[in-house]
């Protein structure tokens, strides 16, 4: 089962992601901050991280840098508001796999997530 970690300070986004992905067969873990996410990563490995860019303690870019450094095999999808599209572009350049905009629909989230594993499977 593909393991997905959602890092977002917004509970509703975390829950929405979980409720969208779990029925599709993904194992979803939730972290409410960058630090919490890294703690999770240190305990177990994940196939995919859904990473919010705008968080209070550690920004998504910082978390991304750590992930790319320590767990280069883990794919990252940036979840961002439209206003930070430049940051999203920067994130992609740093090694993020893709980015989706908030607010996302279950379909758009699933499309993006499935794409990761389709490629991975190939």
């Amino acid at each position, binding site marked *: 089962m593909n393991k997905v970690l959602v890092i977002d300070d*917004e509970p*509703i*986004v975390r*829950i*929405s*992601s979980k*409720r*969208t992905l779990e029925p599709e067969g993904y194992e979803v873990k939730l972290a409410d901050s960058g630090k919490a996410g890294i703690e999770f990563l240190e305990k177990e490995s994940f196939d995919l991280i859904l990473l919010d860019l*705008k968080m209070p303690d550690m920004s998504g870019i910082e978390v991304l840098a750590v992930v790319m450094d320590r767990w280069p095999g883990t794919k990252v999808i940036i979840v961002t*508001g*439209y*206003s930070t599209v*430049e940051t999203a572009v920067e994130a992609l350049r740093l090694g993020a796999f893709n980015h989706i905009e*908030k*607010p*996302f*629909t*279950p*379909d758009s*989230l699933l499309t993006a997530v499935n794409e990761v594993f389709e490629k991975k499977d190939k």
Partner: protein
Amino acid sequence: MKDILRHPDRSIAAKLIIATGLLIFVVSFIFWFATLKKQKSDIMSIALKYGSSFVEFAKQSTKHSMLTNQRDETQRVLETLSTPEGVQKTEIYNHSGEIVFGSKKESLGKSVDKSTIVCSGCHLETEGDAALRPVMQTWSVYKDETDSTSLRIIRQINNEKDCYTASCHVHPKEQQILGFVEANLSLALLDEALFKQGLALTAYVIVFVFAVSLFLGIINYKIVTNPVQKLAQGMGKVAGGDFDQAVAVNSVDEIGVLASTFNSMIKDLKAAGEQREKWTQTLEDEIAKKTEEIKKTQAGLVQTEKLASLGRMAAGVAHEINNPLTGVVTFAHLLKQRCEPGSDDAEDLDVIIEQAERCAKIIKNLLTFARATPAEKGHINVNNVVTRTMQLVKNQEKFHNVKFHLDLDDGPFISNGDGTQFQQICLNMFLNAADAMKLRGDITVKSHQVEEDSKPFVEIVFADTGSGIKEEDMAKLFEPFFTTKPVDKGTGLGLSITHGIVKHLGGNIRIESTLGKGTSFFVRLPLTELTHE
């Protein structure tokens, strides 16, 4: 003139007239006095001369009768001599003062009045054999009993050889003075003549003083008072602010020079005043212009700042709303999956999803306005972009009944910036125009070069023939979410985004609108050097 008489201390003319009048009066008085005195002394000396002749004549007339001791004859001669008018009396008395002969018989044998010059004319004392005076007084003027002036003249009769050798032997040889002949002559006629002459002289002098004073007064008035008054009036008017009144003094004297100097001075003053007025006006105009510019700039700044803070707020709100929207969309989908497809619940959930997505779209637009879109660096060829955008929209259904008119000056007008952003502006303008005209009418686009703060700008005018904008809506036009369109038709962000982009490009945007006739948007973008190459 009345003022001069009422306040002589305030008038130069009055002072001059009084001073010259006084001088003339004093001089005339001295002249009058001296003349009178001279006349009197002249007449007196003439009278004295004739009186002396008369006494001498009496002396000579009686000489023979006295030598021959004809006493009656002597008496008769004296009486005869005294008959003419003016001869009061003629007497002969001896050295002791006893009247021997006289025209008045009642005086004969009497003694003369020794207090008169009869004695004191020669002697220091009247009694005895007194000493003689160094200068002898042989005549005197006195008032007689009728109070008219009389002249008394005395001649001594010296002892001569004929006298002491005469047969009568009345006088011894050693006697030096035998007696005196005295004549008293009335000077009443002379007095009268003197009085008449004095009267005439006085009258002449008075007339002279008066005439000269009057003449001087008139001359004074003509030469001094009148010009000075005119000058004073002119100065008064100038002091009152009337620079148009020149002083009409045409003389070439000091006052004339003063007046012409004054006239040229007020001319200069007037010119200076006008110059100052002009400067003040220019300054006021300049101030008004600058004030207007400052107001405009300030209004622009306020507008920009307002929009910027609104943008920041909108961005913040939009960002926060994105998260709950994610929840709404996700859970609505989840709920829908559990519903029977085509059921009422499923349809209701579709509405929720649709509206949530609409919210997402609004927020997306809002964020476009709020953020400074990173523009691609490049050059905007204004005329090209306008033409291209026009062609792009022309074929769309919305613009089927819209006629486009392009009136673009020969460019190329090149501005620094992202062509796509400028295209977005043009698109917004066309869409707004079409909506304002209810999809039917004319859109005219003009472009030309203008100067602003001595810098070259290209001005693009988008004019429509639509309904126009209400005065009260003008100020709110660039605020986000302000729209006059029906709820589903516009987000109210188009002009905000346009405003943001124009500002970002270093330009400005301005609107002119007439209700019922149409609206023109004036977009100005700074030109780059390329334009002129």
